[in-house]
Structure formats: structure tokens, C-alpha cells
């Protein structure tokens, strides 16, 4: 019995463990030290000192002002001819009811003359510009079937295309309001009675032609419904080569937009007179949409638009002004950094803020 007791108590003592210091060290719950757990990772802690702030403003102005100037020059370099024709191309007697005229069967040919104000280097882009046409209207943007455009086997995916989804139960390819309302005014340009060649090759995105619009997808039942929205497609040309459609299907982001019609690959000289034979087919009259023909060169920055240049100059100017103002303020009324007299508990009550 005694031996029994001794060993059992020894076992109990070992089990108790808490008294045993080596055990307790092993079981210690002390968090392992690391810079991460103690939130002491090496860190850079910048503070806004007057020097840094003034320098920042100076740097911004030094970058922005030249950029603004460059942008403005780029915009100024662009030669742009805009000819609004929606009103003028309707014979005076028909102007009281334009919609009736445009929906009627009369010949819509219209002759326009434009004068080149400045030398234009090729390539010269021919655009049509529509105003007040909401290609971003919710009803409109949703009314398309991207699957159908891409492959023949998906031609029945027309759920989204209503109300232009099928004719007599047969699916329309390409379906939807967007395709249905394809722009169909045409322009024939000539200079000195010589036809100016307007190339329509490569006006759409390459990615669209090659991957988005199928090479073996052909128009079907298109514009066969009760009312015709816009242009027709050539039946035996695959969609991937109908570039007007591809351009049109890239719906514009804003209600005033241009779409590429073609490219002129010869230079135009100052005061060249260009004669345009125009078929005014497209009905924008029911919603006061304006139509314009645009001939424009481009710069590296895009088309003619001074906004960015002005914006850059303004921001650069403001930054320069701020840099100046802060410098003066700093010189006139500096505050020593880390000055404890500014601490709320060191300020005289009432005299502080």
C-alpha cells in the first residue's frame, strides 16, 4: 500500500503540472513575437509637410501645362468639315411634315457642296454625326443578340431582340432594334467631277470583324417586317464583312456621336470644292435628330476637341497658383512642425480654436 500511494501521488503531481515550471513554459500561451503580430512592420509614414505639398503642386503644374499646350496644338491641327444636312435635304415644300416625306416614296437624293478650308492630309475620315439619337437608350442597347451574330447555330437566340426578333416565326438575323435601325444615308463624294474614292474597308474594329461577327453568318429575314427601320444588308455577304453594320452595332456612348463612314486616302487641298451626292433615307425627324456629314483628319490625340487641352491648362494653372499661395502662406505664417503648444490640452481654454 505505501508504495502504491507514493507512485500514485507522484503521478497526480505530474498530472497537475501547473506547479512544474518546465511544463508551464511549454504550455505558455504567450503570443509568439513577430513584427507582424505586434503591428510593428517596417513602414514608411509620410506626412504632408509644406515642402512636399508645394513640390507636389509644382510638379503637377509643370507636367500639366505642357500637356495642355500639346493637347491644344493637337486639337488645332485637326481639320474638320461639318455639314449639317437633315433640314436642308428636305425640299422646302415638304418641310412642314418631314416624317411623311422621309417615309414617302419620293427620291431622296440631295446635293451638297463643301469647301475644304485648309489642307487636309490623308487619311481623311468621313463620318456621319447624329445628334439627339440615344443609341444608349436602355430599350435599345439591350435589343441585340451577340450570340446570334457570332455563329449560325445560335441564330435562334432572339429572346432579347424584341420587338424585332422574328418574322412569321422565323428568326431575323441580325435581330434586334440596333440592327433594324441601321443608318442608311449614303454619300458619294466627288472633287472636280472626279469621284473621290471613299474606302469602306477596315472601318470597323478588327476584333469585331474577326471574332464577334461570324464569317458564315448571313443576313436572314432582315427588314422583312411590317416597318423598315433603316438600311438593308446584302444577303450573300457574311456579317463579318458588312462593316457598316459592325460599326453601327458598336453603340455610341453619348447621344451626340459620330460613326465612321469611310476613309479618303488622298490629300485634299485648301479651297478644294467637294460635291456630295447624298441619299437622305434615314429617319431622324420623328425625334428631332440632327444629321451631319463630317470630313476630318485626326491627330495623335483624336479628333478636334479643345476640352482636354483647356482642362489640363486650367488644372496646371490652379496647381501653380496653389503652389505660389502656399509658399507665401508658409513664409508669412509658418507653424513649427511638432509644436506641442498646438496640442488641445496645452492651449489656453477659450484662446485656442
Amino acid at each position, binding site marked *: 500500500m505505501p508504495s*502504491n500511494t507514493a507512485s*500514485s501521488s507522484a503521478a*497526480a*503531481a505530474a498530472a*497537475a503540472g501547473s506547479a512544474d515550471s518546465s511544463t508551464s513554459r511549454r504550455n*505558455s*500561451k*504567450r*503570443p509568439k513575437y513577430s513584427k507582424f503580430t*505586434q*503591428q510593428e*512592420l517596417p*513602414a514608411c*509614414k509620410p*506626412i*504632408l509637410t*509644406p515642402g512636399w*505639398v508645394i513640390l*507636389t503642386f509644382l510638379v503637377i503644374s509643370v507636367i500639366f501645362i505642357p500637356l495642355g499646350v500639346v493637347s491644344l496644338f493637337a486639337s488645332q491641327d485637326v481639320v474638320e468639315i461639318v455639314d449639317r444636312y437633315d433640314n436642308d435635304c428636305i425640299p422646302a415644300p415638304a418641310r412642314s411634315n418631314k416624317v411623311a416625306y422621309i417615309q414617302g416614296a419620293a427620291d431622296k437624293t440631295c446635293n451638297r457642296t463643301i469647301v475644304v478650308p485648309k489642307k487636309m492630309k490623308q487619311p481623311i475620315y468621313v*463620318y456621319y454625326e447624329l445628334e439627339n439619337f*440615344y*443609341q*444608349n*437608350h436602355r*430599350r435599345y*442597347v439591350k435589343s441585340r443578340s*451577340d450570340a446570334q451574330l457570332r455563329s449560325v447555330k445560335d441564330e435562334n437566340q432572339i429572346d432579347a431582340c424584341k*420587338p*424585332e*426578333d422574328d418574322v*412569321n416565326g422565323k428568326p431575323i438575323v441580325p435581330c434586334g*432594334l440596333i440592327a433594324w*435601325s441601321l443608318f442608311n444615308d449614303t454619300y458619294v463624294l466627288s472633287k472636280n467631277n472626279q469621284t473621290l474614292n471613299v474606302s469602306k474597308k477596315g472601318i470597323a474594329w478588327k476584333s469585331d470583324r474577326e471574332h*464577334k461577327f461570324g464569317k458564315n453568318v448571313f443576313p436572314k429575314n432582315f427588314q422583312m417586317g411590317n*416597318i423598315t427601320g433603316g438600311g438593308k444588308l446584302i444577303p450573300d455577304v457574311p456579317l463579318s464583312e458588312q462593316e457598316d453594320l459592325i460599326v453601327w452595332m*458598336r*453603340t*455610341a*456612348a*453619348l447621344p451626340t*456621336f459620330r*460613326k465612321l463612314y469611310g476613309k479618303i486616302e488622298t490629300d485634299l487641298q485648301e479651297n478644294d470644292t467637294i460635291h456630295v451626292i447624298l441619299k437622305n433615307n434615314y*429617319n*431622324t425627324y420623328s425625334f428631332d435628330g440632327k444629321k451631319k456629314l463630317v470630313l476630318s483628319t485626326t491627330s495623335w490625340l*483624336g*479628333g478636334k*476637341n479643345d*476640352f*482636354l487641352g483647356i*482642362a489640363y491648362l486650367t*488644372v496646371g494653372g490652379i*496647381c501653380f497658383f496653389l503652389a505660389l499661395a502656399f509658399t507665401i502662406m508658409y513664409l508669412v505664417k509658418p*507653424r513649427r*512642425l511638432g509644436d*506641442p503648444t498646438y496640442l*488641445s*490640452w*496645452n492651449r489656453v*481654454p477659450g484662446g485656442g*480654436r
Partner: protein
Amino acid sequence: MDKPPPHHESISSRWSISSKDKEVTFADLGSKRIRHGSAGADSEMLSMSQKEIKDEDARLIYINDPDRTNETFDFTGNSIKTAKYSVFTFLPRNLFEQFHRVAYVYFLVIAVLNQLPQLAVFGRGASIMPLAFVLLVSAIKDAYEDFRRHRSDRVENNRLALVFEDNEFKEKQWKYIRVGEVIKVVSNQTLPCDMVLLATSDPTGVVYVQTTNLDGESNLKTRYAKQETLQKATDLETFDGFIKCEKPNRNIYGFQANMEIDGRRLSLGPSNIILRGCELKNTEWALGVVVYAGSETKAMLNNSGAPSKRSRLETRMNLEIILLSLFLIALCTTAAATAAVWLRTHRDDLDTILFYRRKDYSVKPEGKNHNYYGWGWEIFFTFFMAVIVYQIMIPISLYISMELVRIGQAYFMTRDDLMYDESSNSSFQCRALNINEDLGQIKYLFSDKTGTLTDNKMEFQCACIGGVDYSGREPAESEQEGYSVEVDGVTLKPKMRVRVDPSLLQLTRNGNATEEAKRANEFFLSLAACNTIVPIVTNTSDPNVKLVDYQGESPDEQALVYAAAAYGFLLIERTSGHIVINVRAEMQTFNVLGLHEFDSDRKRMSVILGCPDTSVKLFVKGADSSMFSVMDEESYGDVIEATKKQLHAYSSDGLRTLVVGLRKLNDTEFEQWHSSFEAASTALIGRAGLLRKVAGNIETKLRIVGATAIEDKLQRGVPEAIESLRIAGIKVWVLTGDKQETAISIGFSSRLLTRNMRQIVINSNSLDSCRRSLEEANASVARDDDDESVALIIDGTSLIYVLDNDLEDVLFQVACKSSAVLCCRVAPFQKAGIVALVKNRTSDMTLAIGDGANDVSMIQMADVGVGISGQEGRQAVMASDFAMGQFRFLVPLLLVHGHWNYQRMGYMILYNFYRNAVFVLILFWYVLFTCYTLTTAITEWSSVLYSVVYTSFPTIVIGILDKNLGRRILLSHPQLYGVGQRAEGYSTTLFWYTMFDTVWQSAAIFFIPLFAYWGSTIDTSSLGDLWTIAAVVVVNLHLAMDVIRWNWIAHAAIWGSIVAACICVVVIDVIPTLPGYWAIFQVAKTWMFWFCLLAIVVTTLLPRFAIKFLVEYYRPSDVRIAREVEKLRSFSEPQQNMGTEMNQIRDPSRR
């Protein structure tokens, strides 16, 4: 060696044999054991045993007859199920639980709205994805946790217990145990259910249990079987009786029942029941009848988590959420109204407008309206579509981010090295996960004293015997030894050494030679005998040396018994019938004839011992206030006077004092007492009161033996901590049960009080005097200049008159102007009342910190409850929101983590509002250019991913990791804590500034490209991509501008998030069946795109940058100055200069 008996058991039995010859028993009492302990059963706080249990509130248990017991009421079986779900119920139940969150319901409603064909804004996938993702992640987490619970349930339910069946004990799985069965538990086994004790291996019916699993207390508790059942239990087959007990409840300290056997009624209290989860210790076996099983056991009923609190910031934030909702409604109304106007003006042309075309002519003959339901409906639909499109205006992701951030913050708090307590091996615990940021706004701190400010490790310091003070200290060199005694070749040593007074030691060694020595011996005998300590003998590595460990519920008693041991009075054994004390190597056995346990009314305890010299003595020990009134003043007046004087000196030193007295009882006195004690302890009604009366009757005319002084040592770092907290502008209130002098002296030693404070003491015995003194105090405080700081000291008696009374307001006013408040003699229930008094009168945050069960109410009442995992068990921890090992950890917790958490969370909320609103506004501006229809240029997937992927990660990382100031400076300048108290990190003003900035930024992001691309060939997808990327870059740079500490994680999160967004945009644009195919590549190769982006980034952030600088430079906040100090200290400021600066800062604030 199969089942070793508890080690000390055999030792003590050996001693009892060896000391048998000295054992003296009363002839008439020898056969009878004393029924003690039932007295302590009903300390009235916990049970109401005086009252009869009504039949409808009772359950009837027939002992050893489970069939009959369960006949009428089918009581819950013992199988437990903590798992929430089964395979089949998982999906519905888990979804149901998850949708308790309002945020998810909002998500769901939006997703459902989106499924209506008229409102379908997003594709099915895009609209459901975020919700599905969040639900899935939570469901996986829940499923895993539940799986683990299932597993542990299975293990628990299949454990085996000995159940009495068919006249023998058979092993039975826990889950099959039924109420009414009799169970046998052996030593070190865990109890399977709550059971009433019938018999134990101890002839007196005592068992020792460890309740660590239940309340975390590791000391042994004693429980008793009823005398009446002890003998009967030997023959269980014929055991016939029933127990009528209260319905299951979660009070682990209360139990109330009657047992009826053989027509006799016995009342049962909490000391007669042992609870599931306890472990049987130092007792060979115990028999009990199951009264509560399975989910009805007290352990299971208590198994719920901490109560959830909501953070102040989150509550504040709801106001802004409402503002945002109004803003959302305004946007939607605008969209709907403008759409209505357009439809109205074009109502005749809708069929012919190329981009509208209302009629579907394929439906013959007339054509039918396609997706057009009339003007009114269109407005209605537009409104709800707008709600769907702009849904993230209400930043739902914020709630999820906040949860993640809090988990991250909690991780760092628990891993903080500074808050690890070596002595208790406990690191910081975050028990509540949703009030981290409240730690940064605390204005009032309520602290318990014992165990919180002090260690609750009592050290015996001085003795006053017969009016003579013995407080000299033993010289250092002999401290090594300590007292030890050899018994049967084994050296016994008390586990803790006590410093002794050499002269007193010498005196006790003299035996009973002089009167003085006799008194000294009497004194230490009283200390060793008059207590409820259980000695436990443990082995050491040396087989010849054993340690005596004293276990008990009161640390004061422990200290006294250790002190007695150091002077040669070694308590070695305690059973219910006798105690064995080794008096200077001589074993003496005392019969315990009666025990009156401590109660808070009498404030004393007493034992009646049959001494070896056949005399019967009453030993009483208690608080001085209650002891002097029961002393025999006539005979011992001068000793009492001397002792009183000495006690005053002790308590001025901050020592806790107790007075010991004794009286010899003659036979008639004893008999008289004995019969009334018997009657009282078997009484069914009002037992506690009767017992108290019996005790009161016998505890009179005592001879004063002496007084003890125990030092309650302050915890390390407490004075510094309190000073820091005070400088931080936190009002510290200390609530203690100590008497006024002790409390004040602790106040001084803990630097709560300083010498230059004017003390206002409120110490009244009636409502009127209390009112008078409070009003006087109020007047004097109001009159005073700010120069003098005031300390308010109020005692529990006065508080009785103040609480729940109009005086509360006066007290609050006085307390507000005092820099320290000390409440002494406070009863536990008053603590919550004091916290409530402050909490209800101010919007400032309150924090309560405590360690004991008596602090639970206060901890739960305060906005933030902190538990100290110390000596007094774990109830405080269980009730708390945060738990830690030491009071001083409060300083890093509040000043560092609280400050950080508050600032991080405040910024994160504002930023999330901004981030979502910017995006919504960009979408809104576009509507003005799409003929007022809810087209989004930004792809639907980007809309969905924006708040989930593109911008969420950095804010979470910054919310967890960013620090506006370093730990060092926050600790050295506690005033910086004021940022949170003044709510500078988040306010409605800041919200409005942020919203103005938001409008500007969204406008710049939207309109710069709009004007730049106006009238160009830009297509929707390209412009949408530009807006997406611009928004992501700006929003992330905005955050980058406000990040204070750039470590690699912040870099990775912010730049990584921008890269991730770009990758997502690219991925979306390489899907050929989406309209935006290849758009990003087309647009990104133009210079225009990059020019726009650069212009956007600079323009959006310019005003914020400039204003931020101006404010920080000319109206610097404290934080900003401190940051400058922190940053520039290393090079520009000489060290000397900083030193004076610090002093300047350290000056206590006078605001």
C-alpha cells in the same frame, strides 16, 4: 495499481490512526456526526429555500424509479445536442439564420426585384452572385463548425457511467441516462448530469468537486449528501422516496428542492446537488439521483455565449445610413421623374422613334406594345430599376467588411505581447467581436478593487494579540527555510511561505509558559481552526517531502491558515467531523461540533470545537465592525481599545483586518445551542434566517484573542495605469466592498487619490443627512475654481439612499466634477446601479472591469465589460466582452488598441460611404445622358464586382493594420485618447464633408471623359471601361492619400487592388458574346484614354489634397502634432528638448 486512490486520503487516514490515542470524543456526541454545512447552503442571495415550491413549478422525481418519474412528464433524456443542424435541416435552417441580418434581407429583396422581367437590370447571375458568395462562405464556415460540434456531441453522448439497474451498477452510455436513475460516480470522473447526492464514500457524506468546466474555478468545493439518505443508500433496491425540485434553470449557485423519504421531509439546497461537467475529486465514489439531464442541466443551460452589444459607432452610423437611404430615394425619384417627363413629351412618337419603338408588329394584326405598360407603370418600374442599379448606395459590403475588420483587430489584440500575463499564462481574449471600436471612446471607468486593482493574493502581515502589535519582519536569511514538520519520516511543508515576526515566533515556541505566549498560541490555533479551508497534501520530487496546499473559497482564510502554519499550527486534515492540526509536531484532533458559515449580514463566521482537553470552545472570526459589538467589553475593555487603535493603524496602511474572538462553552450552553441548531438546520421554512439567529445567539460575550492584518497587494503597474487613464481624461471610479479607511489608503497607493485633492466624504445614515451632505458637496464643487481637484468618497450605506432616487442627479453632478470617485462598502447589486446611474445620464461610454462573480452585473451593465481572469474564478470573464490577466493591460487596450480601432473603424465607415456613393453617382450622371433610362456604361459585372473585388480589400486591410500613431507615443501621451472621447474620428460633420467631396469626385470622373469624348466615335463599352478604371484608381488613391503607415501589406493591397480591377476589366472584355468585346484594348491604345485618366485622377483628388493640407497645417489636430513629433523626433529635435516637451504634455489637463 489499477485505480490509485487519491493520494492524501491514505496519508490522512494513517495520521488519524497514529493520533488515535489522543482523540477525545464526547461520549454523548461520539456516535452522532455533525450535520454541518447545510448552514452555508442558503446564503440568501442565491436561493429562496424559505419558500415552498409550488406544485406547478416543480418536478417530481421518484428516486431509483425512472419509469414512474418519466410516466407523466417525459423529462429530457441525457443526450445532448449542441449541433444546430442535421444533414437535412442544414440548408433551410442555416439560410434562415443568415437572413436574420438586415443587410442580407436587403440584398435578397434587391435580387428578387431584379428577377421581375420588367425590372431586370442585371443578368440573373450578376445580381445573385454577391449574395450567393457571402451566403456560401458563411454556410461553409457554419457547416464546418457544426460538423465539429456533431463530433464532440457524439463523443460526449457515448461516454459511460455506472447506473443502478436490476440491483447492480451497470455501465450505460450517457445518452441513455434518464431522470430518476441512480448513478455512481467514482473519483476523477466527470458528472454526466445534475444529480442530488444520496451517499458518498465519506461516512459524513462530503464530496469534493472541481467546477473548472462550469465556472472555471479550480479550487475544490464541498458538497454534502443528506444524513438521512446516507444509510438508506446502502440498500438501493428498497430505496423509496421522491424529490420535488424546481424547474430547470441556469443558476449554477442555486437549487431548491424537498426530498421525502419514509414520510420525512428534508429540504435540499445548492450544496446537495452536483452538476454536469464537474469532476469528482478526493472522494472515492458518490451516489446520486438524476434530477436534470441533458439539455436541462445547468451546465447546458449556461452554454450560451456572451450577450451581444452594439458598438456606439455602429449606432451612430445608422443615422448616416438613413441619410444615404434618403439620398438614394432622391436619386431614384429624379431618375423616375425625368423619365416620366421624357415619355410624356414624346408620347406620340414612341412608335416611330428608332431607339424606342414601342410596338411589336410581329404580333398580328394591330401590333402590341412591347415592354411598355403605360406611363404610370413606366415611372414605377423606372423607380425600382433605379433602386436596383443604385443599390450599393447603402454600403451593404460595409457590414461584412466591418465584421472582417473586427476579427482582424481582435486577432492583433489577442496577439499583443504587451497584454500577455505571465503569472496566469493568459493572453488577451476578445469575447465580443462587435465593440472593438468602443474601446477608443471610454469616458468612465468603473473598477472593482479586490482582484482587479489588487492581486487578491493575500499576505499575512501583522498580528495584534491581546492589544500588542507584532509586525516585525523576519530577517531575510532565514526566509529560505520556512516552517516544516516531520511526521512518520515525511517532512510536511506548507506550500506557501509567510514572513514571520521573530519575536512572535519565539513567543509561540515557548509553549504556554507565559500569559502572552498562551494568548499567542490561542490566536494561531483560532486561525488554524476557524475556517473552511481544505488542506490537500501533494507530493514533491523528493519522496520524503510533502507540501500542504490549502484550498478554500476565501483567499483571506488561506492567508491566515498559511500564517498559522508558519507559526507551527499546521492544519493537516479536515473532514466534516473533525480537523487535525499539527501543533508544533504534535497531532491534535478537534471535533467540529458546529459551523456557522460566513454570511454578509453577520460578517463573521464561527466554529464550535471539541478540543483535545475535552473543553468546548467557540471560535469566531469576522470583520471588526461586526466583532466588537459581540465582545465582552466589560472584562476586556482595555484590550479592545488597544486593538481598535491598532486596527485603525493597520487599515490606514491599506491592510485588511479581521478580529478573532473565542469563548469557552459550558455544557448547558452547548446543549442549548445544540438543540436549537438541530432544529434550525432541519427546518423547512426560513432555514437560513433561523441558522443566522442561532449563530447570533451563541456569538456573544466573546473574549478578544487578537486581530490580523492582511495585505492585499496592488497588482503590478496599477498606480501608473490609473495615472495614465486619468491623464487620458477617463474618470476612474473604484467600487469596493472594503471599509472607508482601507479604500482610501488603497486609493492613495494606487494614485487614484493624490495629496492635493480635496476629499469630499459622504457617509450618511439617513436619506436626509445624505441629501444634505450631497447638496453641500455639490455647492462647494460648483463654487470651486478649476484649480482644485476633488475626490468623492461615498459609502454603501449612503448609496442605498442615493440610488433609485432623485439624489442620483445630485450625485452625478458632484461625481462629474470630481477627478476620482471612490465607493466603499458597496454591495454587489449596487455596482450595477452605480454604472447605470452614469450610463443613463450621459452619452459617454462606460467601461467596467472586475474579476469576481460580484462584478458580473456591473460588467454586463456597462457599455464595455472587461473581465480579469484572476483568482476569483471565471464568471466575470464569462460575462465580459474582453478578458485579460492584469488591470494594467487596460492602458494598452484603451490607449493603443482602442485608439487605433476607433480611428480605423471611423475612417473605414466614412470611406465606405464615399466609395459606394462615388460609384452610384457616376451611374446616376450617366442616366442624364441616356434619355433618363437606366443604362449603365459600366458593365453589370463591374458594377457587381466594384464593391466586392475592386475596392474592398484595401479598406479591410487598412481597417485592420493602419495606425495613425505609434504605440510608444500613444502610451507616453495619454491625452491623445481624447480623439475618441470627442468623437473626432467620425461625426456627421465629417460625413457631410465626405459627401461633398464625393459629389465633386464623381462629377470629375464622369464629366471629364464626357466632354473629352463628346461628339466622337466613342462607344458605350469603351467609355464604360474608362469610367470603371478611373473610379477604381481614384477611389484607391483616395485611400492611399489617407493611409498613414505604408508597410508592404498596404502597398500590396492598394496597388494590387487596382491591378486586380484592371485584370477583371480585361477578362470581361475578352468574352466575345458580351457587347463590350475587346473594348478595353481598343480604347487603351489611344492617348486620349490615358490623358483622360491622368486628368481625372489629379482633378478629383486636388481639392481634398489641398484642404487636407491646409487643415492639418493650420488647424492641426492632436494626432497630427503627435505624428509630426513622432516623425521628426529622430532628426530635427534634440533629445533634451523632447524631454521638456513631454513634461509639458504630461501636465494633467484642466479642461
